[in-house]
């Protein structure tokens, strides 16, 4: 059970003066239960890549499949595969369409054939998961919400379908620190309890370091690295900077401390790890 991409190439508007190569031979497999972060400079091909996973774009070359179903087959045959994948798009307003928040979230579960009771439960659960108060927001128009509220609504709509593979394109852009933390707590829970595979596209290196088990780095349409975040952030700081990326804030802070003579290990990439190290270090130093 997996999403597999084999030698995917993709060109937008091929054969026109506006042709733009977006993917150049990407091969990768996302297993059920993976938690993957995908990072890359703007325009590197991340959004294009996830649309290949969801069968929303057909590759110019190569093959994409979900749980063994080839996504180049006819619409009817890939419907089952589509049902397993939920995508939260980069701009949530592109995804919202209904008159009320409630209807917007209910659309997915209804479409999957859930009963009205089940649908109602799914809507309420999803709203609670993203921290949108039911009484305040259920009847609001999606298009008159604040940026962060819209994003949470779009996420709720996808969560309500309980997809096997949840693809999130910059889900935390526009969320304040608390909403961001709550959101990731929910995602980690869905990942752990339901074994939902998570594919997180992000420009936030801290999130990639903290939550993902596996990090994919894409540069100009090619897969550059595929390894655990710790390995990539500790080893390839310079290379990441060269492709427009960076190390997490904690790693940057660790580097500043190291330059001062604090012996912070090279593989510290999250704030919690840095805090733990400093606590022991300061105490040890106090004893000397």
């Amino acid at each position, binding site marked *: 059970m997996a999403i597999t991409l084999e030698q995917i190439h993709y060109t937008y508007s091929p054969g026109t003066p506006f042709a733009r190569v977006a993917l150049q031979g990407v091969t990768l497999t996302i297993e059920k239960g993976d938690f993957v972060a995908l990072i890359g400079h*703007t325009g590197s091909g991340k959004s294009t890549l996830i649309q290949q996973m969801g069968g929303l774009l057909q590759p110019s070359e190569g093959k994409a499949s979900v749980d063994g179903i080839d996504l180049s087959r006819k619409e009817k045959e890939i419907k089952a595969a589509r049902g397993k994948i939920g995508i939260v798009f980069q*701009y949530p*307003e592109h995804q919202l369409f209904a008159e009320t928040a409630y209807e917007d979230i209910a659309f997915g579960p209804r479409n999957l054939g859930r009963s009205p009771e089940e649908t109602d439960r799914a809507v309420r659960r999803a709203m609670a998961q993203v921290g949108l108060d039911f009484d305040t927001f259920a*009847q609001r128009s999606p298009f008159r919400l604040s940026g962060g509220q819209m994003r949470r609504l779009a996420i709720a709509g996808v969560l309500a379908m309980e997809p096997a593979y949840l693809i999130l394109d*910059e889900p935390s852009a526009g969320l304040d620190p*608390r909403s961001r933390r709550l959101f990731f707590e929910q995602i980690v829970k869905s990942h752990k309890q339901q074994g939902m595979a998570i594919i997180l596209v992000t420009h936030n290196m801290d999130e990639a370091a903290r939550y993902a088990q596996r990090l994919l780095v894409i540069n100009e349409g090619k897969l550059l690295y595929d390894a655990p975040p710790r390995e990539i952030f500790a080893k390839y700081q310079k290379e990441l900077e060269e492709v427009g990326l960076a190390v997490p*804030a904690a790693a940057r802070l660790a580097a*500043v401390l190291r330059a001062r003579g604090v012996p912070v290990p090279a593989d510290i990439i999250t704030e919690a790890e840095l805090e733990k190290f400093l606590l022991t270090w300061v105490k040890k130093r106090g004893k000397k």
Partner: protein
Amino acid sequence: MLEVQGLKHYFTDEQGRTVKALDGIDMHVDDGDYVAVIGESGSGKSTLARHFNALLQPTEGRVLVDGMDTAAEENLWAIRSRVGMVFQNPDNQIVAAIVEEDVAFGPENLGVPQPELGRRVREALAAVGMTAYAQQGPYLLSGGQKQRVAIAGILAMAGRCIVLDEPTAMLDPRGRREVLATVKKLNEEQGITIVYITHDMSEALAAKHVYALEKGKVALAGTPEEVFSETDELERLGLEAPPAGRLAAKLRKAGIKINGNIIRDEELAEALWP
């Protein structure tokens, strides 16, 4: 430059309930100031921003731009040529079919003649690193690229004040650094007044003053040092201090003595290893 007095803005939602998006804001932004606005989602940041160039009118209170009341129709043109706005979603401000024309749209409307117009467009595109895309269709750009074009459009208008609503939300780390550096340069070298809305506390550090909103009111205001040392209050507001400040607070809670107001990486290093 900007004067906000007792500003309230109420919306009516679909069920006829009143949403108090702004509930009594006082704010003073000097000419050449650099102000960051932070606050939980729904706290009123975008609503406030939209008052600065008269896209929204107060329900109560006043907003003055260089002394001109935004509520007076005859001031509209003068206000919009002074205050430029970069929206939260760049899609909402793309107006032309070619990047270059999109950037030219604002200044052209202000009556900027050639060859000045061409020069401004070129410089603005260069400032955001999008020169290579001048002839592209803006709708075909990636998220971050669109955001840079939107910023270029405002730069080309050469107003005295730029309001940016989460301008780096979709940018990669390099893009963020570049936008921040661009904003800083405009502020320092040309004295352009900046109002910068963000959810990224590290970005707010670059400002001279920070306002934290809560449910349409100002909950905290001051220099970054003042605002970000209020760790408990920030937590309550759904916000947080930048990484060095957070870490310093945690170490202190664990009984480690750390002196001074710490919000920047170097300050923490200095405190730990003087």
